[in-house]
């Protein structure tokens, strides 16, 4: 059993930088958890505290039910994969993978068995006698993972393992990592600043921002029900649009009054949720895919509006249209066949079933 628990964990570097400001997190056995957030938000610091490479300033971390605050890295039974792989340059691939087992005095046959097994899982058997410098980036990445797998630890820790690879290889290795996790089922904590990686890999995503956790949840939940403006804007690409607006109470129904005198009716089932903000300034949040060419207008809660794109970006399977609304940059996703052209007014559909209302000051999503 290897659940990982963080209780009010704080990291203050000397010089007073608080990199992690008291986070709580429960990671279940076999779970794949991804820490994601912008650069400098404290993801690596959190991971390194779990690894024991960084001292914990305050709070408690336990692995498999054992408090590890004062346990050195080698006794925490974890394995880590680094961004720059950190392979031992003077050792062959086999020795790189065997090193941890050798230090732990495993019998020779057992080491051989484990290394060969890991090499088979990762498809690097022909490389076992090479030195790291004779490997490509992707191959090195596999060896680094192999070094973690052979140890059969309680927890795998990954710190941006794919960010040194080119885009294509990154996608490939992402699948590879998912496959490995499905095979070995080891509890995994994975750090990345790439939200696509986070969404595709995670059982649960932890969004961090400025040393605190903004939200924890399965990828779909974070996508559809973000709790804060930060999460709403960080997850999803292109990002969610935020339009300053007013929530009006008219004729027993709520309406969103957008700049340019566009008035959109709030779906009836959401009236209760938003009524507290009636008559107030709000941020209206809508994802680009819910801002399309005029279609499905007969469906409930789909409203029409007119927009004049400034830029159109054909992506192949869709076209992104960018327009301005009261100074805010708005992005919509339309069908490539739609008559979208810069400067030409385009009728668009807003799917209000997926609208979000945010409090402008707190950034809270209602």
């Amino acid at each position, binding site marked *: 059993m290897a659940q990982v628990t963080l209780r009010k964990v704080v990291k203050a570097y000397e010089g007073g930088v608080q990199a992690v400001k008291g986070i709580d997190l429960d990671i279940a056995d076999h779970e794949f958890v991804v820490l994601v957030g912008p650069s400098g938000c404290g993801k690596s610091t959190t991971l390194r505290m779990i690894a024991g490479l960084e001292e914990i300033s305050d709070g408690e971390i336990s692995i498999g039910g054992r408090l590890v605050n004062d346990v050195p890295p080698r006794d925490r039974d974890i394995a880590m994969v680094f961004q720059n792989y*950190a392979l031992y340059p003077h050792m062959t691939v086999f020795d790189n993978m065997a090193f*941890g087992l050798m230090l732990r005095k495993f019998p020779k046959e057992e080491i051989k068995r484990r290394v060969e097994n890991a090499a088979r899982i990762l498809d690097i058997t022909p490389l076992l006698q090479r030195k790291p410098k004779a490997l490509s980036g992707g191959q090195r990445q596999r060896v680094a993972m192999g070094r973690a797998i052979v140890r059969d630890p309680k927890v795998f820790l990954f710190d941006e393992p794919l960010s040194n690879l080119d885009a294509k290889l990154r996608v490939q290795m992402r699948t590879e990592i998912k496959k490995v996790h499905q095979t070995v089922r080891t509890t995994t904590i994975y750090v990345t600043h790439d939200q696509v990686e986070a969404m595709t890999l995670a059982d649960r995503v932890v969004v961090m921002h400025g040393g605190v956790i903004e939200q924890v949840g399965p990828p779909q939940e974070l996508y559809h029900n973000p709790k804060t403006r930060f999460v709403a804007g960080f997850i999803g690409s292109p990002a969610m649009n935020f339009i300053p607006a007013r929530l009006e109470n008219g004729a027993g129904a709520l309406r969103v009054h957008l700049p340019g005198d566009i008035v959109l009716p709030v779906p009836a089932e959401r009236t209760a949720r938003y009524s507290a903000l009636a008559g107030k300034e709000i941020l209206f949040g809508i994802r680009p895919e819910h801002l399309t060419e005029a279609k499905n207008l007969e469906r409930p809660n789909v409203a029409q509006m007119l927009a004049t794109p400034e830029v159109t970006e054909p992506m192949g399977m869709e076209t992104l249209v960018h327009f301005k609304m009261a100074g805010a940059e708005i992005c919509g996703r339309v069908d490539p066949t739609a008559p979208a052209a810069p400067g030409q007014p385009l009728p668009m559909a807003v799917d209000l079933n997926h609208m979000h209302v945010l409090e402008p000051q707190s950034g809270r999503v209602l």
Partner: protein
Amino acid sequence: MSTTTAGGFVPAEMKHGSLRRERRWAMIGAYVALAVFVVFFMTPPFHMLVTSLKGSAEIADLSGNPWLVSAPTLQNYWELLTQGNYLLHFRNSIIVTTCTVLISMVVSTLAAFALARMKFWGSATLATGVFLTYLVPETLLFIPMFQIVGSLGLYNNMWAMVLIFPTLTVPFCTWIMIGYFASIPKELDEAALIDGAGHLQMLWKIFIPVALPGILAAMIFAFTVSWAAFIYPIAFLVSSDQMVLTVGIVSDLIRADTFQWGKIMAGALMAALPPLLVYAFLMDYYIAGLTAGATKG
């Protein structure tokens, strides 16, 4: 593929003709410079070799050409190896140098590891301090050293050299190795830590092999300094049986104003052999290590 590209770009190649000619001139220039350099530096050893093959009568004969030898003889070598203390001096030099190199490497590897990796209070200042001590010249130190050696009762004892030479070698060796160790990425020790290595295992299994070129450079330096040291031995060693080669040759083969040139040259030539062997042997590894990681990071 290369043939098609070459065929397709004939005009471009001609355009590069001047570039190639420039390259050739650069090569010629380099070889000329190297040749001058080689002649300049090989002249003294050549003169030594010629002189060492002459009998004392031929050396004393000023009418002959000093660069030629008319009656070559191995007598100087033979006498050195069979009479006098030359072999003893050779043995002393080997003992002193081996011990010095060992001590220097152990001390400076450990010191460099600690200074490069374990951040403790004042470690940066200490690292600079180590290097500064290297800048204090021997000529300034040998009088205080004399007192220390004397009070330890090691005056006129070759083991005093084993004690003193590391003061010349350790600072510089440590400094070289701090640089090499500092260039090893931090993640490598972290990976080793997680893999279960202690500090000494990390040093032995990761740092030393990875920084081997630096360690060999430091070793060559320690060897050279110790083998060629002159001031301390001549100040501290007086009886022939304690002497190392550098002082042994000049004190045993120069009696008042009689210089036994043939033997001095023969002795100096043979004394130059071990450094040559060490360089030739270690350089291969050294260069292999230097270029190993160079192509692919």
